[in-house]
């Protein structure tokens, strides 16, 4: 089905989210919609999906103007959307989820699960989307849950499929698999796909056409063969961006963080971190690579005092801080950029200023004898907003009103403007746009150059490779290898992440997953 958006304009009070956007998606085309956070991608798709009504402009399907008052209308017209956060009922089976809202009923309104199940199997076979219709969603890996979402859209006979940041939650292997599915949908069934992302490599790998949005406007449309990562990044940001992290050689000093024989259990009492030992020296970045869920989260939580280990020792600056409270770890000179910035790093309802002192609110100069010094807090906030280029209407604005990139800058500013000797950064650029990512990378390198020991944890291999001086690979709770970054190849680290034994990592054949 051919989809055209003509002059779509959507205003929110004070914000022009979409400004006369034109978009053409040809029949059976994979069309990437590229843009930074806040560029208006999601708003545009919500208009297309009937969640918002455009203030101006038309939607045309195969040349006919259509109006959508609700997602129900959009679905009926053949538009399917896979949201970034899946819309699945965790305790329902795949089949039950797919039926939800489009139930087949037999006599007396009885649910016809058998029929639905047959259709799921049929779609699954036809489109080569393997999934067991009787498994409960909560028991499926994220990649398969996403597959279920795609099948859900196909179950409703979608001709245009919108994928909103579909790779954000996937491993590299799952991403490849998704691309295979996208290509097969397109060539074999003529499904048009709108692929929303801010990852440049993926756009070049899978899209046929690329439309770039910036500040609510279309800034250009191009094809992968005619462009490059640098050019796309410049279009998105509006100026030339350095994609490579600029950094000189490290000059490591004394060990700051020493972890010795550390073992940690997760909530279910299973071993999550298994006898891990390593150290991070002043002035170096140790990057921990690994597919998410291999113990990195538990490792970081234990180092920062949020979780108690079952065995082993943690020394920071020579002091034994095994099992110490988060406060003690902070005060020993540790900065922590948590993995989940909204859940753990910020109090969204609090102002930017208050979030900037979230863990130093009770020390001089921000408080004296238990009473807060608002002036000192505000002065510090003004400075940090300036220093770290945090885009906010004011320091009193709730941090919830900031974009993801600026929220992350608030956390980084908070952690880096204390005197710290160790920075623990967990996925510091997750979900951030090119501009913010590059800024935060620079800041981390600058902290390293100033003599801070940095422990970087990230499932994004590129990030680990470009920032680290040494690379540790975690697999199933163990640190399977620690390599010097200069000697580590992308392939080698990738294989170690997938569980290949270190000795076999250099061998040409691929390790089993």
């Amino acid at each position: 089905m051919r989809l055209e958006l003509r002059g779509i304009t959507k205003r929110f009070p004070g914000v022009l989210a979409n400004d006369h956007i034109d978009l053409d998606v040809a029949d059976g085309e994979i069309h990437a919609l590229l843009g930074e956070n806040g560029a208006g991608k999601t708003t545009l798709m919500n208009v297309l999906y009937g969640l918002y009504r455009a203030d101006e402009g038309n939607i045309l399907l195969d040349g006919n103007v259509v109006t959508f008052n609700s997602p129900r209308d959009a679905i009926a017209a053949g538009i399917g959307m896979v949201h970034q956060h899946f819309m699945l009922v965790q305790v329902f089976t795949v089949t039950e989820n797919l039926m939800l809202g489009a139930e087949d009923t037999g006599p007396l309104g009885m649910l016809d699960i058998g029929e639905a199940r047959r259709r799921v199997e049929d779609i699954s076979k036809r489109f080569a989307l393997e999934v067991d219709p009787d498994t409960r969603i909560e028991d499926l890996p994220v990649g398969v849950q996403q597959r279920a979402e795609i099948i859900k859209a196909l179950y409703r006979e979608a001709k245009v499929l919108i994928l909103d940041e579909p790779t954000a939650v996937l491993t590299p292997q799952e991403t490849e698999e998704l691309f295979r599915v996208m290509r097969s949908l397109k060539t074999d069934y003529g499904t048009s796909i709108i692929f929303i992302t801010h990852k440049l490599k993926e756009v070049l790998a899978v899209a046929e056409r690329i439309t770039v949005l910036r500040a609510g406007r279309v800034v250009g449309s191009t094809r992968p063969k005619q462009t490059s990562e640098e050019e796309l990044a410049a279009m998105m940001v509006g100026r030339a961006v350095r994609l490579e992290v600029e950094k000189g050689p490290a000059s490591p000093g004394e060990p700051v963080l020493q972890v010795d024989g550390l073992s940690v259990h997760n909530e279910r009492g299973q071993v999550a971190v298994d006898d891990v030992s390593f150290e991070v020296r002043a002035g170096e970045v140790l990057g921990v690579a690994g597919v998410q869920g291999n113990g990195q989260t538990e490792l970081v939580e234990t180092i920062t005092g949020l979780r108690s280990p079952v065995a082993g020792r943690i020394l920071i600056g020579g002091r034994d801080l095994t099992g110490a409270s988060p406060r003690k770890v902070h005060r020993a000179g540790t900065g922590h950029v948590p993995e989940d910035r909204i859940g753990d790093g910020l109090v969204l309802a609090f102002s930017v200023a208050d979030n900037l002192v979230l863990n130093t609110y009770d020390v001089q100069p921000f408080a004296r004898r238990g009473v807060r010094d608002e002036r000192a807090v505000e002065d510090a906030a003004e400075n940090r907003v300036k220093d770290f280029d945090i885009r906010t209407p004011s320091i009193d604005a709730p941090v919830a009103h900031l974009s993801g990139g600026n929220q992350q800058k608030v956390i980084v500013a908070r952690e880096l403007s204390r005197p710290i000797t160790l920075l623990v950064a967990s996925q510091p650029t997750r979900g951030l746009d090119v501009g913010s990512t590059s800024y935060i990378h620079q800041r981390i390198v600058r902290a390293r150059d100033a003599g801070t020991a940095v422990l970087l944890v990230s499932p994004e291999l590129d990030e680990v490779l470009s920032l680290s001086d040494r690379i540790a690979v975690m697999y199933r709770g163990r640190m399977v290898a620690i390599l010097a970054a200069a000697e580590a190849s992308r392939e080698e680290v990738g294989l170690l992440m997938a569980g290949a034994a270190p000795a076999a990592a250099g061998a040409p054949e691929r390790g089993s997953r």
Partner: protein
Amino acid sequence: MSEQVEDEARAAGAPPGGTRAAAEGFVPPKESAWRAVLVPLLALVTALAIGAVIIVFSDPEVLEEWKFFFDDPGAALGASGKAIADAYGALFAGSLGSPIVIFDAFASGDASQIAVAFRPLSETVVATTPLIFGGLSVALGFRAGLFNIGAEGQITAGATAAAFVGFSISGLPVWIHLPLAILAGLVGGAIWGAVPGILKARTGAHEVIVTIMMNYVSFRLLDFLLRGEVFRRPERTDPISKPIEESARLPLLFGQDLRIHAGIILALLVAWAVWYLLFRTTKGFEFRAVGANPDAARYAGIKVGGSFVLVMTLAGGLAGLGGASQLLGGVTLYSMTPGFSSGLGFDSIALALLGRAHPVGIIAAAFMFGILRAGAVRMQAATATPVDIIVVIQALVIVFIAAPALVRAIYRIRERRAERAPASAAKEAA
């Protein structure tokens, strides 16, 4: 100790964010003063309007007129209007007084006449006083993400402790005995609040359940004490406590003719103290952080379990002060009887919501509830309108406050940009 508490809470699998969903809706996001006032005010107006309809329908004479609506619509509407005007007129005359009466009283220059003219206002303030304490208690909990249903029991516990100190010691000067009795109220309530706080921090027991149970314990404990030797007034057979010694009584502010007592001054001071605690001290910052996002608070090194204990203890203490003020102020004739708290603690929950968990809002909301409580008596006496109508109006106010979207829809107030645009921005960012 709180560090240990924290660890144990973790070990016990206490969900630090367990009450987040329950309580976070009650503390509204930062907003302009106008916005903060608008919705509660419209909620009140709407509730009064619906109350008016009920007044019409509860008056048999007016209903009689409605039978002939098509013959004489004027009579039906007129009778309805009169019934509403009479009822609400009496409500406000009974709670705020009438300007004419006040003017005449001053003109006459007769002190007792002036006192009579101000009696409605005095009664309203008397009704307002314990509600301020209770509202502050519940609001403090809301701010820290805790739903303190236990103000009722904490009031009872505080008053019981204050009563014991108040009647069992004699011969002390006022400036020692009275503070001592007030302190006893604070401590009694604090103990009652601390128990759910500690249980929540250590075991993850939900404070709603525990505070409700603590309410029952306090009621029955009071019943038990009032039958025992220590509390029971020897010359009486019914359960009533010994009277509070003169030296432990809160002074009346305007002489014997008016019941208004010094408790209101204490209440306003305490409201200021709570405001200062919440918005000026580091502890208050911790409480608010724990309430708004317990996970982030924990990451920032704040001891969430310790905050729960401290907040519940303080909240209990505030309600306990309310109980002490009620008792020592002579509202219950300086003695304890069964059912002492008489729903004050439950009204407090409502008005903490109405006052948006802010001390200034709570004073305003408590005064409003005071007006309704004090005026209801006169309303029932002067018109056929039953006093229960006030309960209905109070309940309606809460419904509208709890569902601000409803009020916005009725009055077509546009949602703030903050609620929409960032929602989509956040989606895009995540």
